[in-house]
């Protein structure tokens, strides 16, 4: 069967198996391997992407169900080839060690910041609680999200 969707702003039309997941569509069909596979049971969050702005574990989402939607993956956080603000905050804060959970963490954090511009630490922890990280102990990830939230709120430099 055929799906049509937008991924990171680009339109795609692809033939898929009816039982293909969004994760396999992204990784195998479209070659967007930034989204990670960690369990296939919805437990690790490494495969999190945004579907119409909402965070979704793509391993449990059938590709045919995202027909007509707007999908954002970690590759879509870049701005003109540069790291996006959230990604840069992760780097500055040491929020990635092995980096395997990072794409999913970034997408959950991005979804949070889109609906709550000034989240409290507890809200950040809650929003990331579906994303497992075995390396960091989470604090540096929380710090990165706090920092990104703050910089998004900072008044825009008038001279820019």
């Amino acid at each position, binding site marked *: 069967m055929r799906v049509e969707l937008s991924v990171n702003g680009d339109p795609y039309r692809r033939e898929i198996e009816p039982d293909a997941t969004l994760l396999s569509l992204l990784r195998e069909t479209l070659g967007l391997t930034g989204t*990670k596979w*960690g*369990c*296939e*049971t919805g*437990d*690790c969050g*490494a495969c999190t992407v945004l579907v119409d702005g909402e965070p979704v574990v793509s391993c449990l989402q059938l590709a045919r169900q995202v027909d007509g939607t707007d999908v954002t993956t970690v590759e879509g956080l870049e701005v003109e080839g540069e790291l996006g603000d959230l990604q840069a905050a992760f780097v500055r*804060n*040491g929020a990635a*060690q*092995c*980096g*395997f*959970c990072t794409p999913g963490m970034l997408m959950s954090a991005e979804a949070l910041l889109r609906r709550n511009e000034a989240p409290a630490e*507890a809200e*950040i*922890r*809650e929003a*990331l*609680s*579906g*994303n*497992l*990280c*075995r*390396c*960091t*102990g*989470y*604090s*540096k*990830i*929380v710090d990165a999200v706090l920092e990104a939230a703050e910089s998004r709120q900072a008044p825009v430099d008038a001279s820019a």
Partner: protein
Amino acid sequence: MSGLLVGAILRSPHPHARIVSIDISEAEALPGVHAVIHAGNVEQRPYGYNHDNVPLKGEKVRFIGDEVAAVAAVDEETARRALELITVQYEPLPTVFDPFESLDPSSPQIHDELENVEGNVAMRWDWDHGDVAAAEAEAAAIVEGMYSAPQAAPVPIETHIVIASFDPAEHLTVWSPIHMVFMYRKELADCLGLDWEHITVIQPPVGGSFGGKIDIDPHDFITVMLARKTRRPVKLVMSREEEFIGTRTRQPIHFKLRTGADADGNLLFRDAEIVSDNGAYNGWGSHAMLVAMQTITSMYRVPASRVRCAVVYTNKNYGGSVRGFGNPQATFAVEQQMEEIADALGLDPMDVRLRNANQPGDVTPQGMQITSCGLEECLEIVREQSGWDKRRGTMRERHRGLGAAAFVHVGGGARIYRSDGCGAMVKVDDSAQVTLITGASELGQGSETVLAMIVAEEIGVPLDAVHVINSNTDVKPWDVGVHASRTTFVAGNAAKLAATKVREQLLETAVEVLGAPVDELRIVDGVVEVSGDEEKRMPLGKLMRRRLLREQGSIVMATAFYDPPTQMQKDYYGNVSAAYGFGAHVAEVEVDPGTGMVRLLNLWTAHDVGRAINPMSAEGQIEGGAAMGIGLALSEELVIFDGQIAAPNLHDYGLPTAVDVPRIVVNLVETIDPRGPFGAKGLGEAGIIPPAAAIANAVADATGIRPRAYPMRPWKVKEWLDAGERSHVARQGAADA
């Protein structure tokens, strides 16, 4: 990769059974199947410690998950269907899951084929030092008790994935996350009868290991066997379930420990009877006792010690070398008894710890030579930050408590193999780009950055001028591998030595080109400077071109191999590491007396890291390690019924999430180790060691009960609360006095 096939493994559904017959004809006939292998149609030899394992089992299976057959097919679905078409007839055998039962000579023997194994005892570790009986007679107080650690798992978020491919000239390339790459290559060759000079191991970025990717596993061999059989590249991905049931775990260890001290709190002896339940095969996990023993004999000054340890086989998934390697388990016992004995003597546990603290210059009973040691300072820091003196023992009404634990762990390599070394090559090219080719592997622990920083500092170039290559055995110099918190220390020293030589070569050229004596030259930020002569500055790129692009030019490149001055222990005696890391944690908990729920409110940590070369990443290692320690303490466990892991998935396993781990306070204590690169010591495992012990002590302070096992899940704590589980004080000093 063109022609890539998918591999899949058929695993035993029985915990212990004889394989009567295996029929692969239907699986072979399935279109899309390129190979079906089992013990009867492949070449393989026993491998592992005491050669007690073989990749594909022919005679019998010894745990649920044991590998019996494998297929390579065009896609995953076909491979799975082929597995279903293999018929194996088993004759179930009597089983043994409990390690104490396994010790009973009448229990079923799991490795009846091994002549050098008596019953189910894979190995014994016995140790005697000093006169324990005399110390016992002298002791003012003695505490005793059982302390148990469960089977747990390393759980990297990326599972094991292996790709194997033979080229037409029979050269094998394996892409694998295993981080003992050179040993891996040899083990592959030995087991499969391959020429190891025709094997290349490539390590792609690794999505975490925590020791789970140290051991070579049957699936590694199987992937190569499938590629050999099919003449096609084969990829094998462990599913999350297989990661739990078919890769290495943290072995459950049970300690019956006694500690004695005099009336002033001076430790007199420790006496331990230990049973390590390492499962169906030895793996590296059988050697976790090496580290557990060190904590019993050498954590604090202990004049007399006795250890009797049996590593036993049981019909369960077997143990590997998970982060901390026996130390979280041993520390759980040892550090609880530090507080129990202090309480029995009416002394403050921090005072007792400080009184017995290891000191620089000490040689422990096992011959461990302590060089730098910041234990006292670490204890003082967490004592102060947690408000220990005012708060411990005062919050029981609010069901709150404080508990502490310290640790000792190797931090300067660990000689468990004939060599403890690592190679490094450093070169500078005509653009002044510096390349470090290191034997070490990056697993997300940040070694690449730390090694680059060491090289940049040593030569005098900016950090971003240094590139690190570490992923291919054809290219990189030999290394034992990543284990035992050794990379910063051993690979760091190797990189530093090579970088020193490179700097000397650069300065030689500078003397020639700039016409200044060497003692007036410095390399700063990628520029050679001549003291007192601003005019003569020359960027390294230009200097390099002057050296290289001429008749009789030459390159700048140096190699080094650093093998720390460590000893292979003989009869458990010898200086196994060139430096030792120390640290202390204090935990604050609140226990709900109704449900037994333990909530961790705070964790203060102080770690003697020698020198923090990259403080952010050192902190990250300690926070991440401590989070794993918190998981062990409160939630992580592979629950096993009749040999079956009840719920091999991430949902039930109990990995801590962002809401379970509090903000951890990390203090980096710098003691500048005399042998460490710029004074640094290893710290990769450190964070995981004390939390379970510290949290158990905090639970005891909050409730008066004495935790006997972790994870301290609510129902278990509730059980102890209801039963009034207390410290077992065999002799009470203060009461006698």
